[in-house]
């Protein structure tokens, strides 16, 4: 626990495409990286953020100033690897203090090949992004020549039009069985169903960059889950005889995922659909709506969302959103962000589909919206029952 890295950290620089430079020192992997620079206001949960595939291609700046305090552990990974393109913090803890920690963050990032930069004025950087919008950046802890790095930043990939889901998705379909670790859930809604003998609905979950906690929450609710690659077709999905389809979160521009939009369009009405984040945007697009890139997005664990007359404090990570007025009239906007009025959830009762822009699986963040999983399971069970009735009648 008291082990500290002894080597002197090298100087590092974060350069933005607008030419501003933010000096610091390197940690994690000593090297270079480019990505879209975004900030996250969560005060806890850096490990979940680092391993969330939705951050693929992004350099994440944490607004909380002291990061790494509790180290990293095998259970808090949200996927099999780290996805952030780079990680920027005000101060990194040289030690890890938590009974579950196995590795300090520095070492963890190094092992996962993530370039980190610390010691920069993160608040000023965040204000800059807030005012100028998310933009491309480059970090180097090997060559801090500003002109070179600014060029590197400008040569980085533009998020607009980037189809990243295809890059982070799984290669092959696979089964998911692991549920949540019950010790983290004290509220009864998140516990496994009382009746284990109940029929286990089969959920086909599209992996556009899916977070493990989504799959765990579904599994804990008694679902059989098949996770499929992003490019799986509607026919392939229907061949698996799903009781419901889940559209996962993921990185990049939703409009670029034309294949997934098409697939979703074909699945609509055939089976209950639940989408989260990118999955929500894909559903919106499949329904005929439009998406847009936000100035700097929502990333944090404290966003107020109004739904059903109540406010949920929710976990967010999105740089794109669905245009409210682009949606056809049969689409209900169920969730609205109280900070900026942005669409956070929609429902199409006629097609048995609904989605939310934010993260009801939390991890990190508050658990206020976990009822959405119950809502999905209810829809799935109702659908399965009526389907079997149809069968019996047919």
């Amino acid at each position, binding site marked *: 626990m008291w082990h500290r890295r002894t080597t002197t950290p090298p100087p590092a620089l974060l350069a933005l495409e607008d030419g501003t430079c933010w000096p610091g020192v390197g940690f994690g992997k000593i090297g270079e990286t480019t990505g879209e620079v975004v900030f996250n206001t969560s005060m806890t949960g850096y490990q979940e953020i680092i391993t969330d595939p939705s951050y693929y291609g992004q350099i994440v700046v944490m607004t909380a100033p002291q990061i790494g305090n509790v180290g990293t552990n095998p259970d808090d990974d949200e996927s099999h690897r780290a996805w952030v393109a780079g990680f920027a913090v*005000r101060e990194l803890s040289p030690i890890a*203090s938590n009974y579950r920690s196995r590795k300090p963050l520095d070492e963890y990032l190094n092992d996962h090949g993530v370039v980190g930069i610390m010691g920069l004025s993160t608040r000023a950087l965040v204000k800059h992004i807030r005012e100028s919008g998310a933009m491309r950046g480059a970090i180097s802890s090997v060559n801090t020549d500003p002109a070179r790095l600014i060029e590197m930043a400008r040569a980085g990939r533009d998020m607009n039009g980037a189809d990243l889901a295809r890059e982070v998705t799984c290669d092959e379909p696979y089964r998911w069985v692991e549920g949540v670790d019950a010790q983290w859930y*004290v509220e009864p809604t998140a516990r496994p169903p009382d009746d284990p003998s109940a029929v286990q609905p089969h959920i086909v979950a599209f992996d556009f960059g899916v977070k493990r906690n989504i799959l765990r929450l579904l599994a804990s609710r008694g679902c059989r889950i098949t996770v499929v690659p992003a490019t799986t077709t509607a026919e392939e999905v229907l061949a698996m005889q799903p009781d419901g389809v889940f559209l996962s979160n993921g990185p990049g521009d939703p409009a670029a995922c034309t294949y997934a939009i098409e697939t979703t369009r074909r699945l609509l009405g055939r089976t209950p659909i639940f989408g989260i984040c990118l999955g929500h945007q894909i559903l919106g697009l499949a329904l005929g709506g439009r998406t847009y890139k936000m100035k700097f997005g929502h990333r944090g664990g404290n966003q107020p969302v109004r739904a059903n007359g109540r*406010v949920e*404090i929710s976990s967010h990570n999105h740089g794109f959103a669905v245009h409210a007025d682009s949606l056809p009239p049969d689409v209900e906007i169920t969730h609205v962000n109280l900070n900026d009025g942005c669409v956070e959830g929609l429902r199409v009762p006629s097609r048995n589909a609904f989605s939310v822009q934010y993260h009801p699986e939390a991890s990190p963040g508050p658990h206020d919206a976990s009822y959405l999983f119950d809502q999905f399971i209810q829809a799935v069970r109702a659908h399965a029952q009526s389907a079997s009735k149809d069968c019996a009648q047919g």
Partner: protein
Amino acid sequence: MNRLTLNPDMPKRTDIHSILIIGSGPIVIGQACEFDYAGAQACKVLRREGYRIILVNSNPATIMTDPEFADVTYIEPLTVELIEKIIAKERPDALLPTVGAQTALNLATALEEQGILKQYGVQLIGANVRAIKLAEDRQLFKEAMEAHGLKCPQGATVGSVDEALALVGINTGALPGDSPFLRAQFSTLNFPVLIRPSFTLGGSGGGVAHSEAELREKCARGLRESPVGQVLVEQSVLGWKEYELEVMRDYKDNFVVVCSIENLDPMGVHTGDSITIAPAMTLTDKELQRLRDMAKIVMRAVGVETGGSNVQFAVNPDNGEALVIEMNPRVSRSSALASKATGFPIAKIAALLAVGYSLDEIPNDITKKTPASFEPSLDYVVVKVPRWAFEKFPGADPTLGPQMKSVGEVMAIGRTFKEALNKAVQGLEIGKIGIAGAGVGEPASESAIEAQIATPTAQRLFQVFDALRCGLSPERVHAATKYDPWFIEQFCQMIETERALAQHTLDSLPRELLLQAKQEGFGDAYIAKLLKPGAAGAASWLQVRAKRRQLGILPSFYRVDTCAAEFESSTPYLYSNYDGFDESEPQFQKPKIIILGGGPNRIGQGIEFDYCCVHACYALRDLGFETIMINCNPETVSTDYDTADRLYFEPLTLEHVLNVWESESGIAGEGAQRSSPRCLTPVLVQFGGQTPLNLAQALKDYGVPIWGTSPDAIALAEDRQKFAEVLRELDIPQPENGTAMSLDEARRVAAQIGYPVLVRPSYVLGGRAMGIVYGEEELQEYIEEATRVSPDAPVLIDRYLEDSFELDVDAVADGERVVIGGIMEQIEEAGVHSGDSACMMPPLKVSEYHLNIIRDYTERIGLRLGVKGLMNVQFAIKDEIVYVLEVNPRASRTTPFVSKATGVPLAKIAARIAAGQTLEAIGFLDEPKLDGFFVKEVVLPFNKFPSAFYQLGPEMRSTGEVMGHASTFGHAYAKAELGAGERLPSSGRVLLSVNDNDKPNIIKIARDLHRMGFELLGTRGTAEFLNRFGVPVVAVNKVSEGSPHVVDYIRRGEVHMVISTPLGQRAYTDGQAIRAAAIQHRVLLLTTLSAASAAVQAIRAMRAKDFKVRSLQAHHGITSRP
């Protein structure tokens, strides 16, 4: 997006029109001015919403009791019978009990249970009795938690010591063998166990017991302290990590966590005595969200439908197991801290929720654009460090435990924990310029160090740093303290920085290292001390400052914005750091003024001075100034971000104040690059007590304009010798006096003056280390203490005027004219610190002739010193001669009391004078007339320090005050006593035990009591003396004479009032045992004959006529809502 404003169409309750708000009463340990902050917020916002606000609070030194804060303000004792009278008179529709601490909750419960609320049709809002009881009754709470699947520590509620012993497997035989309790609970716990009395404040009466003897003693005390005679005996979770969540819930079941707070000190130390950090630093998201879910369940289980609560948890560091410890269904000390730490005004929002709003309907004050239904995100670290006053209570147990003992706190904000901790320590004003040595000598061995840091005390943080400096490994420090390793690692980093600094002289100090030290919060003064002396000797803090500025290492000021910069914020709530990119945006169009606050509360400097600072703010804002507040005390109204136009949450050190001043004056750079100021922002130092006064001269020397009384005049009044010359010149008598810089000198001076003498250090407040010395042997002891308290300052020695009586005058002056605000007569005789003495207005015993002399002296002194603003003069009258004891050209402790009694806002007038107005222009030319009698009584914290020596003396020990007013002195005094928690008996038994000097004067008191039908008991000497004069007194044994003795009578509740006057200084006599027993058993105790005779008058008045209540507005003819 548009600004969010409360929509008038929104569903605020329209079925209620008037709301009664109960304040928290006098400042006591565990319940301080954070409740003035909360109550003032609630009054303000509900009044703005159009409700008629009826306020009752016994504490005159509060902002909330300013007549403009409520439609009707009652400064009356907080008892059921008086509140019933207020309800009967005002007929409020609703009662809001959640902003007045446990006091208000307990009163609300009593009013409800006695059917008074129902009788008058008053609705309880913001809380319900069931929730209040559930949260406070530890057994019910535990059951409710368990029913909802949450775990609490093992334990049981007991009503007797025998039951408590049974829990740990000791059968005393007192419980019947078939008792269900015995059967169910026998031997369910192991030592150590925690004792927590039900329904007490600040953990009062709580403790940890490691043995049978300790359990017997502490359980017995807990049972006495608990108003329901119950304590919870609980499995100790000593060493577990302690967390708190500040949460809010509305009627729609919206729920937010405003702030998470982590305690550096693990379980076992009351959170009020812990160093605390926000946000929680050592939890994974999984663990934090679990606590959040648990808090949500707690709110629901307790039944808090709307409002703010505080939920405390213990977390096992080895496996993460989380237990619910307790919850407070109201705003609390922690919620005040959380409000200041996050910018989320919990009390204000709780008040709005209580009248029917929901969180999403209320705008976030700071961003104006987002709603209050969110959870603040902090991009900084907040550290709170308590301040204790053990030095004032010789004999008190300095070990920290479940009962809160601190009297104040500082909060600091930094970009990192290190920066915030360093700033907090500098703000404490305990003579530390950094986290330097504990100053208790180097312990001999590592095991001695470990033993030392294993015991939580006020010194522990400093001892831990010393231990690490001495080379004790972080592992062993962790093992001894159970501080989370992450914090210890942060300490190690700070010590490494110290070591790096110590390698350099000022000249060789590299920029990066200096920047790093500043980013870690090191003060310039501490850096100067750590550096190696250069060729020109040791560096001074000014040299470090100059070098730092030359190197361009300037503070930047960041905003507390609730959202980690995600949204723009419009509220200038600022803290300094060294990350660059200043956000302070000072303006240079409008005139501005800086007001220095009072820093952490301590005995002698508390809420009264904050009251004055706030008044100065309001007055200057009205004059068109932009007001800028600097303070570091999170409990105060002055640090509410909407009190001043700009708030800098900074330590009140020269360095931090100058940083703000330079920034606000537009001064950048240093040396040749130093820019000329864009404005010379004036600074006010006379409102925040001694803290800003101590900075005045240095600020002036630096070129800062000090408005109001000049630092020279302040120094003149403080400098005994010069001041004596002034009085000689004015031909005003002063007790003979002298100053001494050494013990020899002191002996000489004392001999010359003649014993008894009054000895004290100069430049301290509250009579710190002040004492009456009767002979040369005692003198040495006092001189040593005085030089320790105030090192380089001379010791003052005065003739002690025995049997004189004292008066206090508060006045304002503008340099041309002096106008008296009020003359107070002390009820206790001379020798008792004026801050500890009850006093009354108008004076009763003093002739008009002497009053005129007093007026004349006050005027002449004020003019001679050139006072521009407030001044306070203390007088003594002995043998028909009026003496001046001291003059303080600044706000005084009694300023708010006088202002409340007279209706004249003295502090506001003083602020306007400081800004250049004359008394004539203001229209305050005559001493205000009084209508009726006003008595101020003090509250002493001896019940928190059961082993401390009880005696009133020249060193101030009280924590708070109340006011009683009525048309007769007797009623006013009785109300004041009642407000202070002392119920005067109207019949019963009185125990008399007085020293020989007092015997002649006890005769009348005893006779009066006898005539009113009281039965009198007396210790042998007193009884025999009184019997000789025909007063029937039954003699009882002294303790040494065997049972049944005096203490037995007190212990058995057979005595209803004790008059016991101590003999001499620090004499441990039987009297001490009597007084200790009286405090322990909550029997009214009077230790001076003047107080006893006032009590007799009060009892007589009470027997003759019932109390009446009268609002301040009615009193001063203020019509509300023009």
